[in-house]
């Protein structure tokens, strides 16, 4: 893809109960948002192993959004509380190895927040677009691209 028509690839890893339902609401309400996002649904943010985030970058994501239920709303009571501690550490670690914080973002989006989902996706997409393609990670991928 040439530079002029480059579009950011955003991977959103979301929980089944809140954010996915919120995204569904945005869809059924016919709200429009930028089409750069690929959604991956998991049971809970507590099920999101940070290695999934690395895998998304390996497979060419320019940015990753992780989103789940607001604190206190977790379907499994505490999944998002546990996830929140892991995110704190993981985002600092990625920052420390030189991955810009804009490329990994987090949000709480409830099942009724279709509007918020639209705003979050537009915001993440714009922020990543401003950063440009994730050339750092894509460069280390080159030796593998032929096989995939």
């Amino acid at each position, binding site marked *: 893809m040439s530079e002029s028509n480059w579009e950011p690839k955003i991977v959103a890893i979301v929980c089944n109960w809140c954010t996915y339902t919120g995204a569904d609401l945005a869809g059924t309400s016919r709200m429009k948002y930028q089409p750069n996002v690929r959604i991956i649904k998991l049971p809970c943010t507590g099920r999101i*192993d*940070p*290695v999934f985030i*690395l*895998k998304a970058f*390996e497979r060419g994501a320019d940015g990753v959004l992780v989103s789940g239920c607001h*604190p*206190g709303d977790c379907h499994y009571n*505490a999944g998002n*509380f*546990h996830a*929140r*501690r*892991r*995110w*704190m*550490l*993981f*985002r*600092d*670690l*990625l*920052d*420390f*190895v*030189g*991955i*810009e914080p804009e490329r990994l*973002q*987090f*949000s*709480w989006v409830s099942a009724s927040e279709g509007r918020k989902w639209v705003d*979050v996706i537009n*915001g993440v997409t714009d922020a990543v677009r401003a950063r440009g393609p994730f050339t*750092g990670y894509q460069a*280390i*991928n080159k*030796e*593998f691209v032929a096989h995939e």
Partner: protein
Amino acid sequence: MSDLCTVAKELLQSGQVKLIVGYEKGSGPHRTRPVVIRSAEEAGRLVFDHHSLNNLAVYLTRKEIKHEGRIGIVAKGCDVRAIVQLIQEKQVKREDVVIIGMACDGVVREFGLAWEREHVAPKCAVCDVRTPHLYDILVGSPAPFEPPADSQLARIEQLKAMPPAERWAFWEREFEKCIRCYACRQICPMCFCDRCIADKSVPQWLESSASRRGNLAWNIMRAFHLAGRCVGCGECDRVCPVDIPLSLLNREMALVAKQEYGYEPGRDPEAPTLIGTYDKDDRQDFIQ
């Protein structure tokens, strides 16, 4: 070291422990090596000095010796922190281990180096457990010791002051050297998983070849799996054959754990682990 030998002899003779993991004289000057002794007659082999580098806590979770019975372990303060963290993580029962705590006057950063100021291990700069914080038997008392400057923290601050692209370039150069020997994992007391994620191939989360992509993923995940667990014994740094500064990653995670959650691993055997628990009011200003 006669104190240590006497203690070891008594423990074995009285049957309080089945075996003792300690250090014996190494194959040359300024070296020791780990040894497992099982009888009182062998107690004389034990030594302890500025070259007792290995963190012997790594043996506590090894099935080969765990089944033999109660283990005595010769441990510096930093090693005791690893033991305590293993107790916190329910990998070791407090009553199954007899800790021979060694008052420590610092160690060198690698074998073969004479005990001189410029050879002191970086971890000794911030050590506050020269007399171990937990032990069954204490041997010796620490002598006056002027710690060196905290070189690790200085390097971390230097890295953080760089723009992200330069940090990325720095780590890429470091990780590129990795040959995936997993020495860092084998030496680490906290890497006790029966099957490491790096060895799983269905699905394969971490590319197993020593490629730039695989090395980045492995080194990031290794550091992350130790976040809030690493006690900073620095063994990974010491054994890395290509000198990747792994403990900078570990230290950075420790700094976050301390700053954000006031948590230090391996301090209190009764305390819950950092990511095994949560607080409803944990910081979340980074979440939209």
